[in-house]
């Protein structure tokens, strides 16, 4: 396995299980633990890996968070394009993610809050007034079926017989 293959293999494992340890990854890939540790450290330093996250199904949490996808149309700044506006939007703690998009809107933000009203107020009072933001369209998420590649419905039951020769 060459360096590029090792990196991709490590990333594939971590993408499915962010809590996998270097020892576990080394066992799965049949590589020395030191090699795996060094590769993960390098990727963290180069911001290829820039964080690890737990996936939470907030619908199962009482008073859990709610979220919305916000379409944002912006006016690009001379000499800076969309970067300045994007940076300003990203500074809002409520914005969980922000991407430049093709299609009918310039940017798409994922926003989280404790209630639909909280999100609506955030959009009206903090997001829309940002210099360069021309218009917003808010789509509240009503139900999540799949997140980050993981189905949120009840775990499929293994129907196989426990022992088959």
């Amino acid at each position, binding site marked *: 396995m060459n360096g590029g293959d090792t990196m991709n293999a490590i990333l594939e494992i971590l993408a499915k299980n962010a809590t996998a340890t270097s020892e576990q990854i080394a066992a*799965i890939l*049949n590589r020395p633990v030191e090699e795996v540790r060094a590769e993960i450290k390098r990727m963290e330093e180069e911001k290829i890996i820039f964080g690890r996250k737990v996936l939470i199904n907030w619908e199962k949490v009482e008073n859990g968070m709610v979220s919305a996808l916000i379409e944002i149309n912006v006016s690009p700044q001379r000499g800076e394009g969309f970067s300045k506006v994007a940076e300003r939007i990203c500074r809002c703690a409520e914005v969980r993610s922000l991407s430049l998009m093709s299609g009918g809107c310039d940017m798409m933000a994922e926003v989280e809050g404790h209630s639909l009203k909280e999100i609506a107020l955030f959009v009206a009072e903090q997001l829309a007034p940002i210099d360069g933001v021309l218009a917003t369209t808010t789509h509240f998420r009503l139900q999540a079926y799949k997140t980050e590649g993981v189905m949120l419905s009840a775990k499929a039951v293994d129907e196989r017989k*426990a022992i088959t020769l």
Partner: protein
Amino acid sequence: MSILDQINPTVRAIPPSGIRKFFEILDQMPEAISLGIGEPDFVTPWHIREAGIRSLESGHTYYTSNWGLPRLRTSICNYMKRRFDLSYDENQVVVTVGGSEAIDACIRVLCQPGDEVLIPEPSFVCYRPCALLAGAVPKVLETREEDQFRLTPEILEKAITDKTKLLVLPYPNNPTGAIMEQEDLEKIVAILKDKNIFVLSDEIYAELTYRGKHVSIASFPEMYERTVVVSGFSKAYAMTGWRLGFACGHPDIIQMMVKVHQFGIMSAPTTSQYAAIEALDNGDNDIETMKKEYNLRRHMIVNGFREMGLPIFEPLGAFYAFPCIKSLGISSNDFCTQLLQEEQVAIIPGNAFGESGEGFVRCSYATATDSIQVALDRIKRFVEKKRAEG
């Protein structure tokens, strides 16, 4: 005279499973983690399922030809050539209800009462009973850990008599994960080539070979005519429940297998056959995806056993690991029963696959990595406890 007394004595004589008590205990433990499952944990890829569904929607609900759909047999020929460089015509292929039916039909066609059938063990449990039901005499070839459970020429040569009719070659192997590579087969061919012995090559795990490409004994010109290759869709395409397999071989052998097949089965399930066409024609990527995942788990489980100090040769095929537990001084049955009771992990005693499996246990890695990890942690704890008690 009781009803039982009037049953065919050959059937009655086939011994019941040696691990039936183990099954009874496991039945009481639905929450146990099982590394005892001998089928893929993947669902059949959607495009294959869809092909089956489409065939039903189109009304393909009738019998097919006894031989199997002509279109499927063409796809099988193309697949065997593409994946294993084996050339067959459609009249050399029969579609069966799983590889299991092909194995049974092949033995019945080739063996007369009294013929000897050589069976390397440890191996899958069906060969001996099928030989007995055909009136043949099964003879066990005990393979060894020091040979990585490969069939060696010495073991084979010692077992051959003038009654030997058929050699079963079950590689890649269940339960050991052993494979036979080019140089291993050359030595076997050197012994067989001048003898009138046929080979039943059970290659159901052929796609799950992790070093190089699977080599079939049928690829040797000296053995091509006398080898029946049995394979199927259960393991490569995660189609266990579809019950579909096939055999490829000399047209005269296959024609006779069709005769046996047609009277007992009529034809393999039609829906499964249409799904199989899609699998063979468009499923190569699915095989590679599943194999890649199995390979990662293989490393994980082998490294796990090595870390706990249990000797284990590297399995290069199928989805089984076969560690040796002899150092703990307890039998395979006791190891597995106690592990199940104390740690709620189910694995299979090696002697379920033949007496030469005593002292070993079969662990399937056809299950999710997090289950494998939990199971390994529990097995390690159990092993350490047994060592401390020892």
